[in-house]
């Protein structure tokens, strides 16, 4: 029946819209980048992420690291990371976050967090 066809088309359109919105939301909220710690250096010196994105700090070195930030936009401290371990940080505020290692002062990373 024509009415059933219309309802079916409407339901299909609604389902497609939900999938698109959901995928978009997941992409926005769940973005994750990896930063490696190797040879007592970060694999990047500057990164840009969206609010809600995460960075996974992977210790690929044979020594311990301790990633932290005292920036107003995001204060965090992963505490001691033994070799082979990872720590994930989610950036919840817009701004610039200066990231360092408490054990190796030469290790520096600037994270720009955008809306």
């Amino acid at each position: 029946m024509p009415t059933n066809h219309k309802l079916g088309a409407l339901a299909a359109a609604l389902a497609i819209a939900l999938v698109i919105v959901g995928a978009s939301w997941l992409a926005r909220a769940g973005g994750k980048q990896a930063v490696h710690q190797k040879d007592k250096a970060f694999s990047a010196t500057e990164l840009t992420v969206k609010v809600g994105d995460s960075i996974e700090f992977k210790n690929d070195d044979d020594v311990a690291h301790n990633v932290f930030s005292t920036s107003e936009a995001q204060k965090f401290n992963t505490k001691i990371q033994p070799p082979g371990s990872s720590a994930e940080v989610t950036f919840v505020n817009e701004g610039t976050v200066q990231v360092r290692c408490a054990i190796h002062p030469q290790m520096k990373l600037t994270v720009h967090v955008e809306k």
Partner: protein
Amino acid sequence: MIFGAVVAAGLSMAEARERTLTLTISLKTTGHSIVFDQTELDAPFGTRLRLTYKNAAPAGSMINHDVAILRPGSDEKILATLQEHDYQLDSIKDSKDVIGLTKTLKPGESDSIEFLPPTRGDYVYICLMPGHGDVMGMRGTLRIK
């Protein structure tokens, strides 16, 4: 402890002050820890102090440390200045709030600070390496009574 050192030297506190005895405080950090081995110290007012610090971290750890003695109540201001200047010690080392500051010490190295506390009060001693005193809690209190 300092009072113990005075007693061990066979002096009363008054005698110690009269003789301007220099008392030695020994601090160290061991292993990969980023804390001092002592977080509370006491000393009598009017006595010259020598604070000796040894960085006993493992040789290959690359964990450097230093120790600063800060005027009572000034620690937050000093740390804020340091953070604003990317932890450059030049930004605070000439401040009147910094009573003394050791060299930056590699594992195995030692240094001393000599000072006469100008007032009674709680002096913070703290490592000013990035993240050590402000994030990891590498600090303690020297009570001058």
